[in-house]
């Protein structure tokens, strides 16, 4: 296979494109996998068919997220004096503390995700994406107000929220 590009005339380009299209036409429509994948599918759909969705977990996650999103929206409208009974931890310390924990939790989740009910997995990952987005918004705000105690506290709560979701799904007996 030649990886060197050469200067081509428009005619050459057209011919090359035609050749590529001809090659595409020759591609097989189907390729047989090297191993039979049915056993894995059957095992998963058997579990799916008899397992109700984990509605309690989904409701719990959704409720937590609703509170989180409300907090972000509330702060984004300018209020900065959220009551903070807990000591405030600077976000650099939070990143240092939670970073390794997140990596472990995400790795554990990834390892178990394939065995999860597909619907629950979709819900969890959609919720994790919302948390991720919220975290991005908070970080954006922290760039301009790095010492804002409310923002730092909100980031901490967001970390905690993500950890609790990951912990809940990786320890749930119904998964």
């Amino acid at each position, binding site marked *: 296979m030649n990886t060197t590009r050469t200067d081509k005339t428009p005619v050459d380009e057209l011919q090359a494109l035609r050749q590529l299209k001809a090659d595409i036409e020759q591609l097989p429509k189907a390729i047989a996998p090297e191993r039979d994948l*049915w056993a894995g599918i059957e095992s998963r*759909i058997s579990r799916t068919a008899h397992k109700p969705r984990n509605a309690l977990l989904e409701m719990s996650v959704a409720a937590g997220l609703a509170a989180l999103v409300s907090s972000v929206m509330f702060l984004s409208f300018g209020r900065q004096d959220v009551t903070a009974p807990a000591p405030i931890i600077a976000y650099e310390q939070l990143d240092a503390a939670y970073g390794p924990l997140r990596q472990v939790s995400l790795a554990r989740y990834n390892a178990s995700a394939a065995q999860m009910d597909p619907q629950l997995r979709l819900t969890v990952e959609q919720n994790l994406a919302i948390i991720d987005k919220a975290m991005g918004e908070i970080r954006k705000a922290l760039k301009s107000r790095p010492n804002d105690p409310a923002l730092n506290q909100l980031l901490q709560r967001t970390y905690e929220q993500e950890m609790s979701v990951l912990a809940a799904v990786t320890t749930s007996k119904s998964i």
Partner: protein
Amino acid sequence: MLEASLELPQGSVDDDAPLVRAAREGDKRAFEALYRRHVGRVYALCLRLTGHVANAEELTQDAFVRAWTHLEHFRGEALFATWLYRLTANVVIDHQRKQRSWFSRFSSMDDEGFIEPSHEIAHGERRDLEAAIAKLPKGARQVFVLHDIEGWQHDEIAARTGTAVGTCKAQLHRARQLLQGWLVR
């Protein structure tokens, strides 16, 4: 790689309908028959979109599991095969999007700089193009496979992947240029 003849789904399109009806009622044997009929196309799509055998196998399984759990949403307005291949592409796109999002938290590598761990497509007859497709950057490969092989329109690809139509067109142009350069005879 098995040499089974899977150029086209076995049986006519109409043959899917009773199997789909039975599978919707919970008949796993009927669903297995649908799997046997369509796995080649589904796997080929996963393999070309990912360029990676192990990922393609896992995503093929994911696609059939999702098809099973979503059969109630299949109304029969389109062919089952069309619905299944579209669902498969969505499974792969969702997977790649999540992977990119999660990797980006821990890594500075972007989409174009990310090289898959291996390109395991076997070489042989007609395999040069397959191997070259697997070598494409992820974004360019995704658009090339969906547009030039699967026949999606740019606006469909853009809507599904969350990119601009112009970006899709640029990715396709890039993919073709790279492939033409690599496949010079």
